[in-house]
């Protein structure tokens, strides 16, 4: 996992800027210094000095997002207070041909907000006002920097909330949620960010105002909302979002069920869905993960079980009673060895405490972990877990597993020590193996964390050259000069060609004895 600055851009041409052609040269360094003063001079006409950061000690906090293994100093960090400033910054950067990386709370897990060494990081955290909540129409109009949980907090007095709940919801911003199409543990029933957003306002790379969707349930023309949602800041800069609010369910109840084998747990997931039940949440933890979180939260998890399922129902009191009864019957029929239904809210939250703390608990198991995010058809969960088990032997690293089982979205956490370059490398191979196995099972390399810089190579496996070519053309349709977050999400053809060669010439790989596909 090299830092972004240490290698030349694949396919860089001599006519490209010096920092692309030969990033470590004195010529590149000088060119960057010159460009920095040029950009600062242009932006100083728009922003007060305190809103422009450029000294290394000031910009260091912006070097990475939640994927800390990738770091890069930005040329300049711009922190606008309002939309007019956003528009002007974009216009200036466009005129100067300077890349712009929009950034929300910086909690992303795939390096989507990794700075560009010759670009401006546009921190939108200060656009954090909730403009309007419509209690009758159940919508909220919020600026992009508003935190996910702050929307639900503001809507709570009206008995409403914003349904998508990524685990970083205390900190992550709605603008970032749009960029990643964030999910959470309630997606199967309540949808992803896409399903809970009506209207997105923002600016094109040229700084022109643009609106996708509308406050109505549809808008004229092509529906571009699904392109912009999940586009990782590459199509437009989002400044204001109209979200749909959901009535808070009267009651939520959770079943914790134990299974003796991974296979029976996987089958139980299919049985639930097959019975016509759409649980509010359906999560699976394997035995090592359960042990880790029990040690962390002491929630009374069954440490003997090969897998634990958390199955939640919400709605009216009558609805929940009916659904919990049906869920229990299905789980019993599927061979659950132990079933516990939460008696009250405190117990329900205790059931969830482990799941919600899966990441920090894993931090206690090992100096570092790498979280994967692929999605597979639900019916192949057990097969996938077995495959991961055998990869543990293959790569000599441990892996603990939590799944959004209802969505088929996996979060295997590969444990390693980043200070050991060999472990880091094996971890990367392990991760790529999981992603490729997921694609071969009919799944996708990213369910909710995005591609960013982390999964660029895996995109080469999932999509053909013509499909990737079309995605690059979509990027240019929105941003002809390719200045918005360049180099993320969709790999260049050259990059995939390089990656393809690595696969073909296995003898060249650092671990030629590792069995691959």
């Amino acid at each position: 996992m090299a830092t972004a600055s240490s290698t030349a851009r694949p396919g860089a041409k001599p006519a490209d800027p010096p920092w692309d052609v030969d990033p470590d040269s004195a010529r590149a360094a000088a060119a960057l210094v010159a460009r920095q003063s040029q950009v600062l001079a242009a932006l100083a006409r728009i922003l007060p000095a305190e809103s422009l950061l450029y000294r290394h000690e000031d910009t260091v906090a912006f070097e990475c997002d939640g994927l800390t293994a990738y770091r890069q100093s930005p040329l300049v960090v711009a922190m606008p207070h309002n939309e007019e400033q956003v528009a002007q910054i974009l216009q200036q950067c466009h005129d100067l041909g300077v890349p712009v990386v929009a950034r929300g709370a910086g909690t992303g897990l795939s390096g989507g907000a990794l700075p560009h060494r010759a670009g401006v990081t546009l921190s939108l955290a200060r656009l954090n006002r909730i403009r309007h909540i419509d209690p009758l129409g159940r919508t909220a109009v919020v600026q992009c920097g508003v935190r996910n949980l702050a929307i639900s907090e503001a809507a709570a007095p009206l008995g409403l909330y914003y349904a998508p709940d990524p685990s970083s919801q205390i900190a992550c911003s709605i603008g970032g949620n749009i960029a990643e199409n964030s999910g959470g543990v309630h997606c199967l029933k309540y949808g992803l960010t896409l399903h809970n957003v009506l209207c997105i306002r923002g600016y094109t790379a040229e700084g022109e105002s643009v609106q996708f969707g509308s406050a109505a349930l549809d808008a004229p023309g092509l529906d571009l909302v699904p392109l912009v949602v999940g586009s990782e800041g590459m199509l437009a800069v989002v400044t204001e979002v109209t979200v749909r609010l959901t009535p808070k369910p009267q009651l939520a109840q959770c079943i914790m069920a134990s299974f003796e084998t991974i296979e029976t747990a996987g089958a139980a997931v299919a049985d639930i869905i097959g019975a016509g039940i759409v649980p509010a949440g359906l999560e699976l933890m394997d035995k090592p993960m359960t042990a880790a979180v029990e040690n962390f939260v002491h929630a009374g998890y069954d440490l003997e079980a090969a897998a634990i399922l958390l199955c939640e129902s919400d709605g009216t009191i009558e609805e929940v009673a009916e659904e919990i009864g049906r869920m229990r019957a299905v789980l019993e029929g599927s061979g659950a060895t132990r079933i516990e239904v939460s008696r009250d809210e405190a117990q329900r939250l205790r059931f969830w405490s482990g799941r919600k703390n899966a990441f920090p608990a894993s931090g206690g198991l090992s100096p570092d972990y790498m979280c994967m995010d692929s999605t597979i058809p639900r019916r192949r969960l057990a097969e996938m877990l077995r495959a991961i088990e055998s990869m543990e032997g293959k790569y000599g690293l441990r892996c603990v597993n939590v799944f959004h089982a209802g969505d088929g979205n996996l979060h295997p956490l590969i444990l390693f020590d980043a200070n050991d370059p060999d472990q880091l490398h094996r971890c990367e191979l392990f991760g790529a193996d999981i992603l490729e196995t997921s694609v071969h099972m009919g799944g996708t390399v990213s369910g909710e964390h995005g591609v960013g810089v982390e999964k660029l190579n895996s995109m080469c496996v999932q999509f053909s050259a013509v499909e990737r070519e079309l995605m690059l053309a979509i990027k240019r349709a929105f941003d002809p000069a390719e200045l918005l977050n360049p180099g993320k999400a969709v790999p260049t053809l050259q990059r995939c060609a390089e990656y393809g060669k690595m696969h073909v010439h296995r003898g060249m790989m650092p671990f030629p004895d590792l069995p691959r596909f």
Partner: protein
Amino acid sequence: MDAVVTRLADQIRGAAAGAAPLCIRGSGSKDFYGGVPVGAPLEMGELRGICSYEPTEMVITARAGTPLAEVEAALAEKGQCLAFEPPRFGGKGTLGGMVAAGLAGPARASVGGVRDFVLGVSLLDGRGELLQFGGQVMKNVAGYDVSRVLAGSLGVLGAIAEVSLKVPPVGAARQTLVFDLDQGAAIVQAQQWTSLAVPIRASAWHQGRLHVRLEGALAAVESNAVRLCASHAATALEPEAAAAYWSDLRDHEHAFFRGPPPDGQTLWRIAVPPAHPPLDLPGDTLVEWGGGQRWVFSDAPASHMRAIAERAGGHATAFRGAPERAETFAPLQPALERIHRRLKAAFDPAGIFNRGRLYPWL
């Protein structure tokens, strides 16, 4: 590539070479909608059949020319459905046409639209390349979400070959109640009930009567029906009558829609923020989606209808019977129009697919 797809791809390449327009065609049930179809037909009807259906995955994958009726029958057998209730004009529609038209029925406001259920597609682009986007899984953020953009695209980007859709279970119970309310009260009431988590799956107001369909868990439907009837005078419809009512509404067989538009009148579809108070619409009005979709027959000029919709934060579509079909859809802001043009060029460089169907310049 199978033989039918290969033949379609060949036809596309031939047309692209001569920049000759193609009209992507399923059953033709929505020929009335959008700009007048032009060009040689690209017949999708032979590309039919369900490719895979896994009820435990809540996913069905079928080829574009598969009749909607065939898909719905397969789903019904397993207690699942197309929750967005797409209209079946004349009972002939195909799956590909359903996605391309992007029209949803009475349940739209509560469950989402066509695009919300699209999980993946394979698409023949303007070069005759078969491309795949999305997949058969619920969550997928790898690359741009091209598959969902095709919902409502009216075929201007390419010919859908295959679609995967999320297919949720049908509600365990349903009950339709009818209330005597004026339009303003009906809109407010539908919104308030939804805010109170009353499981309203569909609503429709016409000529002083609000039909509300509760759907969901048995306990929730029963308790809420009792609750609503206790606070408001309501009539409960018999299950057969209720099913017929919603099916007619969905397929535009309801008395309001039936038959060709009256002389010189256009059927306008006004989409506005659902809670918006009644609009000053010049004619008999039918309100769906808790207020989000309002239908009116009128001979008022398009500019008048568009202004009314825009003032309310929405847009107006000349759905059927417009004198000028090229102006079916509301115009776009300049930045959006430029993006549309460039997207069209990316998908269909020779500009052959469904020319003028969405906009005259596309």
